[in-house]
Protein backbone atom coordinates (compact mmCIF):
# COMPACT_ATOMS: atom_id res chain seq x y z
CA UNK A 1 0.00 0.00 0.00
CA UNK A 2 2.65 2.68 0.78
CA UNK A 3 4.17 2.13 -2.64
CA UNK A 4 0.80 2.48 -4.25
CA UNK A 5 0.19 5.74 -2.40
CA UNK A 6 3.56 7.10 -3.44
CA UNK A 7 3.01 6.31 -7.10
CA UNK A 8 -0.45 7.82 -6.89
CA UNK A 9 1.00 11.01 -5.47
CA UNK A 10 3.49 11.41 -8.31
CA UNK A 11 1.06 10.98 -11.16
CA UNK A 12 -1.00 13.74 -12.71
CA UNK A 13 -4.74 13.53 -13.22
CA UNK A 14 -4.80 11.93 -16.66
CA UNK A 15 -2.24 9.32 -15.68
CA UNK A 16 -4.33 8.51 -12.64
CA UNK A 17 -7.30 7.79 -14.86
CA UNK A 18 -5.23 5.49 -17.03
CA UNK A 19 -3.93 3.74 -13.94
CA UNK A 20 -7.48 3.25 -12.75
CA UNK A 21 -8.64 1.75 -16.00
CA UNK A 22 -5.65 -0.57 -15.96
CA UNK A 23 -6.49 -1.49 -12.40
CA UNK A 24 -10.06 -2.25 -13.37
CA UNK A 25 -9.02 -4.34 -16.34
CA UNK A 26 -6.63 -6.37 -14.23
CA UNK A 27 -9.24 -6.61 -11.49
CA UNK A 28 -6.88 -5.11 -8.97
CA UNK A 29 -9.65 -3.82 -6.68
CA UNK A 30 -11.13 -7.30 -6.45
CA UNK A 31 -7.85 -8.54 -5.09
CA UNK A 32 -7.70 -5.55 -2.76
CA UNK A 33 -11.14 -6.46 -1.50
CA UNK A 34 -9.76 -9.67 -0.08
CA UNK A 35 -7.60 -7.55 2.20
CA UNK A 36 -10.61 -5.57 3.28
CA UNK A 37 -9.74 -2.52 1.18
CA UNK A 38 -12.28 -1.87 -1.50
CA UNK A 39 -14.72 0.99 -1.47
CA UNK A 40 -12.70 3.24 0.76
CA UNK A 41 -9.90 3.64 -1.72
CA UNK A 42 -12.19 5.43 -4.17
CA UNK A 43 -13.54 7.78 -1.55
CA UNK A 44 -10.03 8.54 -0.37
CA UNK A 45 -8.82 9.06 -3.93
CA UNK A 46 -11.64 11.52 -4.54
CA UNK A 47 -10.82 13.45 -1.39
CA UNK A 48 -7.18 13.44 -2.35
CA UNK A 49 -7.94 14.77 -5.83
CA UNK A 50 -10.07 17.57 -4.39
CA UNK A 51 -7.37 18.45 -1.86
CA UNK A 52 -4.75 18.44 -4.58
CA UNK A 53 -6.78 20.73 -6.81
CA UNK A 54 -7.48 23.14 -3.98
CA UNK A 55 -3.85 23.51 -2.94
CA UNK A 56 -1.73 23.24 -6.08
CA UNK A 57 -0.26 25.21 -7.76
CA UNK A 58 0.06 27.22 -4.60
CA UNK A 59 0.94 30.56 -6.28
CA UNK A 60 -2.45 30.53 -7.96
CA UNK A 61 -4.49 29.08 -5.13
CA UNK A 62 -3.03 31.37 -2.47
CA UNK A 63 -5.41 34.18 -3.46
CA UNK A 64 -8.39 31.91 -2.93
CA UNK A 65 -7.27 30.90 0.55
CA UNK A 66 -6.47 34.50 1.49
CA UNK A 67 -9.96 35.48 0.36
CA UNK A 68 -11.48 32.66 2.41
CA UNK A 69 -9.53 33.83 5.45
CA UNK A 70 -10.73 37.38 4.85
CA UNK A 71 -14.31 36.14 4.64
CA UNK A 72 -13.98 34.19 7.87
CA UNK A 73 -12.42 36.97 9.93
CA UNK A 74 -12.82 40.32 8.14
CA UNK A 75 -11.55 42.30 11.13
CA UNK A 76 -8.08 40.79 10.65
CA UNK A 77 -7.72 42.11 7.10
CA UNK A 78 -6.27 45.55 6.64
CA UNK A 79 -8.31 47.47 4.03
CA UNK A 80 -11.53 45.96 5.32
CA UNK A 81 -14.22 44.18 3.36
CA UNK A 82 -13.76 44.50 -0.38
CA UNK A 83 -16.09 43.47 -3.16
CA UNK A 84 -14.34 40.19 -3.87
CA UNK A 85 -14.73 39.10 -0.26
CA UNK A 86 -18.46 39.72 -0.28
CA UNK A 87 -18.69 37.84 -3.55
CA UNK A 88 -16.82 34.86 -2.13
CA UNK A 89 -19.06 34.99 0.93
CA UNK A 90 -22.14 34.90 -1.27
CA UNK A 91 -20.81 31.91 -3.17
CA UNK A 92 -20.10 30.19 0.14
CA UNK A 93 -23.71 30.59 1.22
CA UNK A 94 -24.64 28.77 -1.98
CA UNK A 95 -22.27 25.93 -1.25
CA UNK A 96 -23.87 24.77 1.99
CA UNK A 97 -25.10 21.46 0.61
CA UNK A 98 -21.71 20.82 -0.91
CA UNK A 99 -20.00 21.47 2.42
CA UNK A 100 -22.45 19.18 4.19
CA UNK A 101 -21.59 16.37 1.79
CA UNK A 102 -17.87 17.00 2.18
CA UNK A 103 -18.21 17.05 5.94
CA UNK A 104 -20.12 13.79 5.81
CA UNK A 105 -17.36 12.25 3.71
CA UNK A 106 -14.63 13.46 6.03
CA UNK A 107 -16.50 12.16 9.08
CA UNK A 108 -17.11 8.92 7.25
CA UNK A 109 -13.41 8.46 6.53
CA UNK A 110 -12.24 9.72 9.92
CA UNK A 111 -14.57 7.43 11.84
CA UNK A 112 -13.28 4.47 9.89
CA UNK A 113 -16.72 3.71 8.51
CA UNK A 114 -15.27 3.42 5.04
CA UNK A 115 -13.27 0.36 5.89
CA UNK A 116 -15.85 -1.18 8.15
CA UNK A 117 -18.60 -1.23 5.54
CA UNK A 118 -16.21 -2.93 3.13
CA UNK A 119 -15.32 -5.57 5.67
CA UNK A 120 -18.76 -6.28 6.96
CA UNK A 121 -20.63 -6.91 3.77
CA UNK A 122 -18.00 -8.16 1.35
CA UNK A 123 -18.85 -5.45 -1.10
CA UNK A 124 -22.58 -5.48 -0.61
CA UNK A 125 -23.53 -1.87 -0.23
CA UNK A 126 -26.42 -2.10 2.18
CA UNK A 127 -25.49 1.13 3.86
CA UNK A 128 -25.92 0.98 7.62
CA UNK A 129 -26.35 4.37 9.19
CA UNK A 130 -23.29 4.89 11.36
CA UNK A 131 -23.75 5.83 14.98
CA UNK A 132 -22.05 9.22 14.74
CA UNK A 133 -24.67 10.41 12.24
CA UNK A 134 -27.22 10.61 15.01
CA UNK A 135 -24.77 11.53 17.74
CA UNK A 136 -24.99 14.89 19.45
CA UNK A 137 -21.74 16.45 18.17
CA UNK A 138 -22.64 15.85 14.53
CA UNK A 139 -26.36 16.40 14.63
CA UNK A 140 -26.40 19.46 16.88
CA UNK A 141 -22.98 21.04 16.39
CA UNK A 142 -21.15 20.13 13.22
CA UNK A 143 -23.98 20.00 10.68
CA UNK A 144 -25.84 23.12 11.85
CA UNK A 145 -22.63 25.11 12.11
CA UNK A 146 -21.73 24.31 8.51
CA UNK A 147 -25.16 25.58 7.51
CA UNK A 148 -24.95 28.58 9.79
CA UNK A 149 -21.41 29.84 9.31
CA UNK A 150 -21.53 31.13 5.68
CA UNK A 151 -24.59 33.24 6.50
CA UNK A 152 -22.89 34.42 9.66
CA UNK A 153 -19.80 35.48 7.67
CA UNK A 154 -21.93 37.55 5.32
CA UNK A 155 -23.81 39.02 8.29
CA UNK A 156 -20.55 40.12 9.90
CA UNK A 157 -19.32 41.53 6.59
CA UNK A 158 -22.43 43.70 6.32
CA UNK A 159 -21.92 45.00 9.85
CA UNK A 160 -18.26 45.72 9.09
CA UNK A 161 -19.29 47.68 5.99
CA UNK A 162 -21.76 49.63 8.08
CA UNK A 163 -19.07 50.39 10.63
CA UNK A 164 -16.57 51.60 8.03
CA UNK A 165 -18.97 53.62 5.87
CA UNK A 166 -21.56 54.71 8.43
CA UNK A 167 -24.40 54.19 5.93
CA UNK A 168 -27.46 52.47 7.28
CA UNK A 169 -28.73 51.84 3.77
CA UNK A 170 -27.94 49.35 2.32
CA UNK A 171 -25.62 47.63 4.77
CA UNK A 172 -27.89 47.24 7.79
CA UNK A 173 -30.79 46.10 5.61
CA UNK A 174 -28.50 43.61 3.94
CA UNK A 175 -27.52 42.36 7.39
CA UNK A 176 -31.22 42.04 8.17
CA UNK A 177 -31.58 39.81 5.12
CA UNK A 178 -28.95 37.41 6.40
CA UNK A 179 -30.37 37.64 9.90
CA UNK A 180 -33.76 36.51 8.59
CA UNK A 181 -32.17 33.62 6.71
CA UNK A 182 -30.27 32.54 9.80
CA UNK A 183 -33.48 32.57 11.81
CA UNK A 184 -35.20 30.39 9.24
CA UNK A 185 -32.41 27.86 9.13
CA UNK A 186 -31.83 27.73 12.85
CA UNK A 187 -35.52 27.24 13.58
CA UNK A 188 -35.73 24.65 10.85
CA UNK A 189 -32.68 22.82 12.15
CA UNK A 190 -33.07 22.84 15.90
CA UNK A 191 -36.77 22.72 16.66
CA UNK A 192 -37.88 19.46 18.24
CA UNK A 193 -40.46 18.52 15.65
CA UNK A 194 -42.12 15.54 17.23
CA UNK A 195 -43.71 16.88 20.36
CA UNK A 196 -47.46 17.33 19.90
CA UNK A 197 -49.45 17.89 16.78
CA UNK A 198 -50.78 21.30 17.78
CA UNK A 199 -47.41 22.75 18.64
CA UNK A 200 -45.99 21.42 15.45
CA UNK A 201 -48.79 22.93 13.41
CA UNK A 202 -48.35 26.39 14.92
CA UNK A 203 -44.65 26.12 14.58
CA UNK A 204 -44.96 25.09 10.96
CA UNK A 205 -47.26 28.01 10.17
CA UNK A 206 -44.83 30.41 11.80
CA UNK A 207 -41.86 28.84 10.11
CA UNK A 208 -43.41 28.82 6.65
CA UNK A 209 -44.39 32.48 6.97
CA UNK A 210 -40.86 33.34 7.96
CA UNK A 211 -39.57 31.23 5.10
CA UNK A 212 -41.69 33.02 2.51
CA UNK A 213 -40.90 36.49 3.84
CA UNK A 214 -37.18 35.80 3.95
CA UNK A 215 -37.16 34.34 0.45
CA UNK A 216 -39.13 37.18 -1.10
CA UNK A 217 -36.89 39.68 0.65
CA UNK A 218 -33.73 38.04 -0.71
CA UNK A 219 -35.17 37.78 -4.21
CA UNK A 220 -36.09 41.46 -4.08
CA UNK A 221 -32.59 42.23 -2.89
CA UNK A 222 -31.01 40.21 -5.70
CA UNK A 223 -33.04 41.83 -8.43
CA UNK A 224 -33.27 45.42 -7.28
CA UNK A 225 -30.11 45.95 -5.29
CA UNK A 226 -27.55 43.45 -6.51
CA UNK A 227 -28.52 43.63 -10.16
CA UNK A 228 -29.96 47.13 -10.19
CA UNK A 229 -32.94 45.95 -12.22
CA UNK A 230 -36.65 46.42 -11.63
CA UNK A 231 -36.80 50.14 -12.35
CA UNK A 232 -40.20 51.06 -13.73
CA UNK A 233 -38.76 53.98 -15.66
CA UNK A 234 -36.71 51.59 -17.82
CA UNK A 235 -39.32 48.85 -18.30
CA UNK A 236 -38.16 46.98 -15.19
CA UNK A 237 -34.53 47.15 -16.31
CA UNK A 238 -31.69 49.55 -15.61
CA UNK A 239 -30.56 52.50 -17.69
CA UNK A 240 -27.75 50.65 -19.48
CA UNK A 241 -27.16 47.02 -20.36
CA UNK A 242 -24.04 45.13 -21.35
CA UNK A 243 -25.70 41.89 -22.37
CA UNK A 244 -27.27 42.02 -25.82
CA UNK A 245 -30.79 40.67 -25.33
CA UNK A 246 -33.43 42.07 -23.02
CA UNK A 247 -35.10 38.76 -22.36
CA UNK A 248 -31.89 37.58 -20.62
CA UNK A 249 -32.72 40.03 -17.88
CA UNK A 250 -36.40 39.16 -17.62
CA UNK A 251 -35.81 35.41 -17.53
CA UNK A 252 -33.05 35.92 -14.94
CA UNK A 253 -35.48 37.84 -12.73
CA UNK A 254 -38.11 35.10 -12.89
CA UNK A 255 -35.54 32.34 -12.50
CA UNK A 256 -34.02 34.00 -9.47
CA UNK A 257 -37.38 34.20 -7.73
CA UNK A 258 -38.10 30.52 -8.35
CA UNK A 259 -34.65 29.23 -7.50
CA UNK A 260 -34.44 31.26 -4.29
CA UNK A 261 -37.13 29.03 -2.83
CA UNK A 262 -35.16 25.95 -3.81
CA UNK A 263 -32.09 27.45 -2.24
CA UNK A 264 -33.56 28.12 1.19
CA UNK A 265 -34.63 24.51 1.16
CA UNK A 266 -31.00 23.43 0.76
CA UNK A 267 -30.02 25.40 3.86
CA UNK A 268 -31.81 23.02 6.18
CA UNK A 269 -29.57 20.27 7.54
CA UNK A 270 -30.38 16.81 6.23
CA UNK A 271 -31.35 15.49 9.64
CA UNK A 272 -34.13 18.03 9.95
CA UNK A 273 -35.15 18.38 6.32
CA UNK A 274 -37.35 15.33 6.29
CA UNK A 275 -39.15 16.42 9.44
CA UNK A 276 -40.14 19.89 8.26
CA UNK A 277 -43.06 18.65 6.22
CA UNK A 278 -43.78 15.83 8.61
CA UNK A 279 -47.19 14.25 8.33
CA UNK A 280 -47.88 13.73 11.99
CA UNK A 281 -46.31 13.05 15.36
CA UNK A 282 -46.42 9.28 14.99
CA UNK A 283 -44.46 9.10 11.82
CA UNK A 284 -40.71 8.90 11.80
CA UNK A 285 -38.93 10.68 8.97
CA UNK A 286 -37.83 7.49 7.31
CA UNK A 287 -41.45 6.45 6.79
CA UNK A 288 -42.69 9.59 5.15
CA UNK A 289 -42.74 9.94 1.42
CA UNK A 290 -41.23 13.37 1.75
CA UNK A 291 -37.97 12.09 3.13
CA UNK A 292 -37.51 9.87 0.11
CA UNK A 293 -38.35 12.80 -2.10
CA UNK A 294 -35.89 14.91 -0.11
CA UNK A 295 -33.12 12.42 -0.74
CA UNK A 296 -33.73 12.68 -4.46
CA UNK A 297 -34.12 16.43 -4.45
CA UNK A 298 -30.98 17.25 -2.48
CA UNK A 299 -28.38 16.87 -5.28
CA UNK A 300 -30.69 18.51 -7.79
CA UNK A 301 -31.24 21.44 -5.46
CA UNK A 302 -27.50 21.74 -5.00
CA UNK A 303 -26.95 21.94 -8.76
CA UNK A 304 -29.85 24.36 -9.26
CA UNK A 305 -28.42 26.62 -6.61
CA UNK A 306 -25.08 26.67 -8.39
CA UNK A 307 -26.87 27.58 -11.62
CA UNK A 308 -28.64 30.41 -9.85
CA UNK A 309 -25.44 31.64 -8.26
CA UNK A 310 -23.71 31.55 -11.63
CA UNK A 311 -26.14 33.83 -13.41
CA UNK A 312 -26.48 35.89 -10.28
CA UNK A 313 -22.72 36.52 -10.55
CA UNK A 314 -22.98 37.44 -14.22
CA UNK A 315 -25.54 40.18 -13.59
CA UNK A 316 -23.93 41.25 -10.32
CA UNK A 317 -20.65 41.98 -12.06
CA UNK A 318 -22.41 43.77 -14.90
CA UNK A 319 -24.12 46.06 -12.42
CA UNK A 320 -20.88 46.58 -10.53
CA UNK A 321 -19.06 47.50 -13.73
CA UNK A 322 -21.71 50.02 -14.73
CA UNK A 323 -22.66 51.58 -11.42
CA UNK A 324 -20.16 51.05 -8.58
CA UNK A 325 -23.16 50.06 -6.50
CA UNK A 326 -21.98 50.09 -2.92
CA UNK A 327 -18.97 52.31 -3.22
CA UNK A 328 -16.30 49.66 -3.12
CA UNK A 329 -14.22 51.64 -5.59
CA UNK A 330 -13.24 55.27 -5.34
CA UNK A 331 -13.48 55.87 -9.09
CA UNK A 332 -16.70 55.11 -10.89
CA UNK A 333 -15.08 54.37 -14.21
CA UNK A 334 -14.10 50.78 -14.96
CA UNK A 335 -12.01 50.14 -18.08
CA UNK A 336 -13.46 47.59 -20.47
CA UNK A 337 -11.93 44.17 -20.33
CA UNK A 338 -9.78 43.09 -23.27
CA UNK A 339 -7.88 39.88 -23.35
CA UNK A 340 -4.19 40.52 -23.83
CA UNK A 341 -3.45 36.93 -24.68
CA UNK A 342 -6.39 35.90 -26.82
CA UNK A 343 -6.74 32.16 -27.23
CA UNK A 344 -9.12 32.08 -30.13
CA UNK A 345 -10.44 28.74 -31.24
CA UNK A 346 -11.35 28.26 -34.87
CA UNK A 347 -14.94 27.44 -34.11
CA UNK A 348 -17.72 29.94 -33.74
CA UNK A 349 -19.51 30.41 -30.47
CA UNK A 350 -22.60 28.43 -31.31
CA UNK A 351 -20.86 25.26 -32.44
CA UNK A 352 -18.76 25.28 -29.29
CA UNK A 353 -21.91 25.63 -27.25
CA UNK A 354 -23.45 22.64 -29.03
CA UNK A 355 -20.30 20.65 -28.45
CA UNK A 356 -20.24 21.43 -24.76
CA UNK A 357 -23.96 20.68 -24.54
CA UNK A 358 -23.41 17.33 -26.27
CA UNK A 359 -20.64 16.37 -23.89
CA UNK A 360 -22.76 17.44 -20.95
CA UNK A 361 -25.64 15.27 -22.16
CA UNK A 362 -23.33 12.28 -22.58
CA UNK A 363 -22.00 12.76 -19.06
CA UNK A 364 -25.45 13.16 -17.54
CA UNK A 365 -26.76 10.15 -19.48
CA UNK A 366 -23.90 7.96 -18.36
CA UNK A 367 -24.39 9.13 -14.79
CA UNK A 368 -28.08 8.29 -14.96
CA UNK A 369 -27.27 4.92 -16.49
CA UNK A 370 -24.85 4.16 -13.67
CA UNK A 371 -27.43 5.13 -11.06
CA UNK A 372 -30.19 3.07 -12.67
CA UNK A 373 -28.00 0.05 -13.18
CA UNK A 374 -26.57 0.19 -9.70
CA UNK A 375 -30.05 0.45 -8.25
CA UNK A 376 -31.14 -2.62 -10.20
CA UNK A 377 -28.04 -4.45 -9.05
CA UNK A 378 -28.63 -3.65 -5.42
CA UNK A 379 -32.26 -4.62 -5.78
CA UNK A 380 -31.25 -8.00 -7.16
CA UNK A 381 -28.72 -8.34 -4.37
CA UNK A 382 -31.38 -7.57 -1.82
CA UNK A 383 -33.74 -10.15 -3.28
CA UNK A 384 -30.88 -12.65 -3.38
CA UNK A 385 -30.20 -12.18 0.28
CA UNK A 386 -33.91 -12.37 1.05
CA UNK A 387 -34.23 -15.65 -0.76
CA UNK A 388 -31.19 -17.15 0.83
Amino acid at each position, binding site marked *: MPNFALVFFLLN*AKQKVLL*YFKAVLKRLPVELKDYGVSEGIFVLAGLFAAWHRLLFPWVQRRGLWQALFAVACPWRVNPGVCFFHTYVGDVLTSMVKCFLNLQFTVFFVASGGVWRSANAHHGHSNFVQPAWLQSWPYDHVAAPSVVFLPLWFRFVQCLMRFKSTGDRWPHLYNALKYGLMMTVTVFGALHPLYTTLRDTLWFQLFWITLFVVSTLYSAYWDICLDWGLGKLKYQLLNDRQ*MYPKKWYYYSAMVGDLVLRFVWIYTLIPPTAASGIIALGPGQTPSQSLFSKLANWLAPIAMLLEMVRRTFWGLFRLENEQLHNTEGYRRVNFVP*LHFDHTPERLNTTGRSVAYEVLGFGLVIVASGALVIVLSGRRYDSMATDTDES
Partner: protein
Amino acid sequence: MAGLLSVHWSWGLQVLVWTRFRINYVYIFELDPRFTRSYTQIFSDCASDSIVFFSLVFMLVWVC
Protein backbone atom coordinates in the same frame (compact mmCIF):
# COMPACT_ATOMS: atom_id res chain seq x y z
CA MET B 1 -17.06 16.66 -4.31
CA ALA B 2 -19.53 17.02 -7.12
CA GLY B 3 -20.39 20.32 -5.48
CA LEU B 4 -16.80 21.53 -5.59
CA LEU B 5 -16.63 20.43 -9.20
CA SER B 6 -19.78 22.34 -10.10
CA VAL B 7 -18.41 25.45 -8.42
CA HIS B 8 -15.27 25.17 -10.50
CA TRP B 9 -17.30 24.78 -13.71
CA SER B 10 -19.47 27.69 -12.70
CA TRP B 11 -16.43 29.90 -12.18
CA GLY B 12 -15.12 28.96 -15.62
CA LEU B 13 -18.49 29.76 -17.20
CA GLN B 14 -18.66 33.10 -15.43
CA VAL B 15 -15.17 34.02 -16.59
CA LEU B 16 -16.19 33.07 -20.14
CA VAL B 17 -19.25 35.31 -20.12
CA TRP B 18 -17.48 38.19 -18.40
CA THR B 19 -14.65 38.01 -20.90
CA ARG B 20 -16.97 37.87 -23.88
CA PHE B 21 -19.08 40.83 -22.79
CA ARG B 22 -16.08 42.88 -21.72
CA ILE B 23 -16.91 42.98 -18.05
CA ASN B 24 -13.64 43.65 -16.30
CA TYR B 25 -13.89 41.09 -13.54
CA VAL B 26 -10.16 41.24 -12.85
CA TYR B 27 -10.39 44.93 -12.09
CA ILE B 28 -13.62 44.73 -10.10
CA PHE B 29 -12.47 41.78 -8.01
CA GLU B 30 -9.02 43.36 -7.56
CA LEU B 31 -7.42 40.10 -8.58
CA ASP B 32 -3.73 39.82 -9.33
CA PRO B 33 -3.53 39.83 -13.16
CA ARG B 34 -0.41 37.69 -13.04
CA PHE B 35 -2.34 34.76 -11.62
CA THR B 36 -5.71 35.07 -13.31
CA ARG B 37 -6.34 32.36 -15.81
CA SER B 38 -8.31 32.36 -19.01
CA TYR B 39 -11.49 30.37 -19.24
CA THR B 40 -9.90 27.77 -21.50
CA GLN B 41 -7.36 26.98 -18.80
CA ILE B 42 -10.06 26.79 -16.16
CA PHE B 43 -12.21 24.54 -18.33
CA SER B 44 -9.24 22.30 -18.96
CA ASP B 45 -8.76 21.78 -15.23
CA CYS B 46 -12.47 21.22 -14.77
CA ALA B 47 -12.54 18.65 -17.53
CA SER B 48 -9.72 16.56 -16.11
CA ASP B 49 -11.27 16.82 -12.65
CA SER B 50 -14.59 15.66 -14.05
CA ILE B 51 -12.94 12.69 -15.72
CA VAL B 52 -11.31 11.69 -12.46
CA PHE B 53 -14.53 12.17 -10.51
CA PHE B 54 -16.80 10.28 -12.89
CA SER B 55 -14.37 7.41 -13.29
CA LEU B 56 -14.16 7.15 -9.50
CA VAL B 57 -17.94 7.06 -9.22
CA PHE B 58 -18.08 4.58 -12.06
CA MET B 59 -15.67 2.27 -10.35
CA LEU B 60 -17.22 2.72 -6.93
CA VAL B 61 -20.53 1.55 -8.35
CA TRP B 62 -19.36 -1.12 -10.77
CA VAL B 63 -16.31 -2.67 -9.19
CA CYS B 64 -17.38 -2.73 -5.58
